[in-house]
């Protein structure tokens, strides 16, 4: 579990209990105060953690509640109905939707990871007129909300009959992700100059230097970039809702609109099951790749 490694150790550990006189050694009172304060901290944090986690517990309980008991006024159902889960999978074309999600997320993830690496390398290690300005533009585009470009892009694409397939994701992927480019640029800037110089003496071209020297060195970042990109597409609702149709849309759209009966009422236990299955891979991926996530989050701020 890598979370604590990323940011701890030095510096701002919470200011210690107050000591009145500058020359005094830690008074016994202060020493006794510390565990008590920590106990208060711990209590607050445990309460917050419980409040934040409880919706997941409710989701699990609802997912396993038989349809006949979903409206009953009780905390737990009389029995956990595990076949609800298979019902949730069968009620919508769950596996097909999941496959679409995986294909689309991986397609975008691979493309944007490499494209961002290439552009990041350009900004980090090469010179050209207007570089400063373009880098400013890059940082500005980091702040552009996707929804601003999404609707006009959709109108343009549908005008030329380009909707209903994965082409937009291919193009978005090939264009790179501003934030990921920024990460690569930071990473490549920090590498020693000798790396290129030796290769240039050997007569290697820029592309070979990038592919054979820099790309392999950036492996940790490749993982971060891919995980962030995969997660972004897996979690995206608006773009697949606009650009795709019921045959090739993703799980996000399928789960959020599929669990209704003929009359249009939501089947809450199946919805809970579907949402649970939809979210489990994301949480697992987070637990496995915490460091990547944390790095991405700490930089990108509060996305969606």
């Amino acid at each position, binding site marked *: 579990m890598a979370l604590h490694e990323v*940011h701890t150790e030095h510096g701002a*550990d919470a200011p210690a209990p107050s000591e009145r006189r500058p020359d005094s050694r830690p008074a016994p009172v202060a020493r006794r105060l510390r565990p008590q304060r920590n106990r208060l901290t711990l209590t607050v944090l445990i309460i917050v953690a419980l409040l934040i986690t409880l919706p997941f517990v409710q989701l699990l309980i609802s997912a396993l509640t038989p349809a006949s008991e979903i409206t009953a*006024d009780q905390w737990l159902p009389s029995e956990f109905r595990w076949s609800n889960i298979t019902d949730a999978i069968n009620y919508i074309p769950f596996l097909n939707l999941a496959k679409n999600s995986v294909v689309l997320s991986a397609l975008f993830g691979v493309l944007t990871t490499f494209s961002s690496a290439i552009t990041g390398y350009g900004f980090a290690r090469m010179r050209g007129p207007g570089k400063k300005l373009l880098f400013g533009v890059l940082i500005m*585009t980091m702040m552009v909300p996707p929804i*601003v470009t999404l609707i006009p892009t959709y109108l343009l694409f549908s005008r030329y009959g380009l909707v209903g397939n994965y082409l937009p994701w291919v193009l978005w992927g090939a264009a790179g992700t501003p934030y990921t480019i920024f990460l690569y640029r930071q990473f490549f800037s920090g590498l020693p100059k000798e790396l290129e*110089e030796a290769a240039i003496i050997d007569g290697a071209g820029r592309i070979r230097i990038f592919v054979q020297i820099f790309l392999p060195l950036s492996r940790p970042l490749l993982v971060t970039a891919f995980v962030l990109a995969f997660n972004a597409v897996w979690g995206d609702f608006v773009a697949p809702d606009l650009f795709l149709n019921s045959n090739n849309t993703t799980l996000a759209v399928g*789960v959020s609109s599929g669990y209704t009966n003929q009359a249009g009422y939501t089947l809450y236990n199946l919805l809970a099951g579907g949402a649970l299955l939809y*979210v489990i891979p994301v949480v697992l991926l987070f637990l496995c790749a915490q460091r990547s996530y944390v790095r991405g*989050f700490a*930089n990108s701020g509060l996305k969606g």
Partner: protein
Amino acid sequence: MSTLPVGAARPRTSPAPRRRGGRSRGIRSALAFYGFISPWLIGTLLLTVFPVGYAVYMSFTDWNGMTSFMPWVGLSNYQEVFTSSDTISSLSKTLILCAVVVPTTIIGSLFLAVLLNKKIRGRTVLRTLIYIPAVVPPVAAALIWKVVFNKDSGSANRILSLLHIRPVDWLTGQLAFVVLIVVLLWGVGSGIIINLAALQTVPAEQLEAAKMDGAGALKAFRHVTLPAISPILLFQTVLVTITTLQTFVPAILLSPDTGVNVYTSIPQSNDVYMVDVYEQYFDYSRYGLGSAMLVVFFAVILLMTALIFKFLGRSVFYAVDPSESGRG
């Protein structure tokens, strides 16, 4: 770092050809630079600049998406954005949402970050648990809370019944706005991560010195920690504001019946700005007005970003990177 320029080691012949060689090398390296950044550059032109330009153009027309020509109407769409009761109502809802969500998120995440920064037992587990909602996609977050606030089976009403309060219809009336706020606040974890990273940039010596001077924990926090992290707090405030302004997915997915036509069953109280934009485009086919609304929104974002640049400079973008901490 004082490394010699690449050219310096070369034997000096006559200066003129060297300069010429330098120039052609300059052109070649500039071409290489543009070659490397071309995927992004072309992509940005095609997929960001062009669509935004298209929206700007549409905003001056009264196009409904059906006709082959776009009737020019000048600024009347913009006039409508700022005067029509619909947009004013959706805009004010969005601003209220920001007024609640932004300060709560900033202060709450800072408070939790300070607590999680202490050396306590089980810190890693607590951090992980508190972060998890931040990685849950907005779609899933909306669906999860929809289950929690569901009138018949949700635990929100169960808790109310413990207090002898009758079940409440959370998702249809005014209360849907409360649920929307809860969904947005649930993702407080990503703010905590930024703040934890920010807390590492506070110079330990200064905290030590403050302690030596007899400052209590609160005082040290106010006079040392807060000034040190204030650029990041401001940056975060802008980011959270931008994110909250574009609230869309939770607003549409919280509505109780998600049939084929999700957008029509959104409770009035959750008709925030982006939902309004969507409705103008896809319910009323008012591409012009929708575009004008998008352009206004875009201008506001640009203005906020420009202000951040002016007051904080680019360094704040570096400062929030934990692997780079100490630089900002």
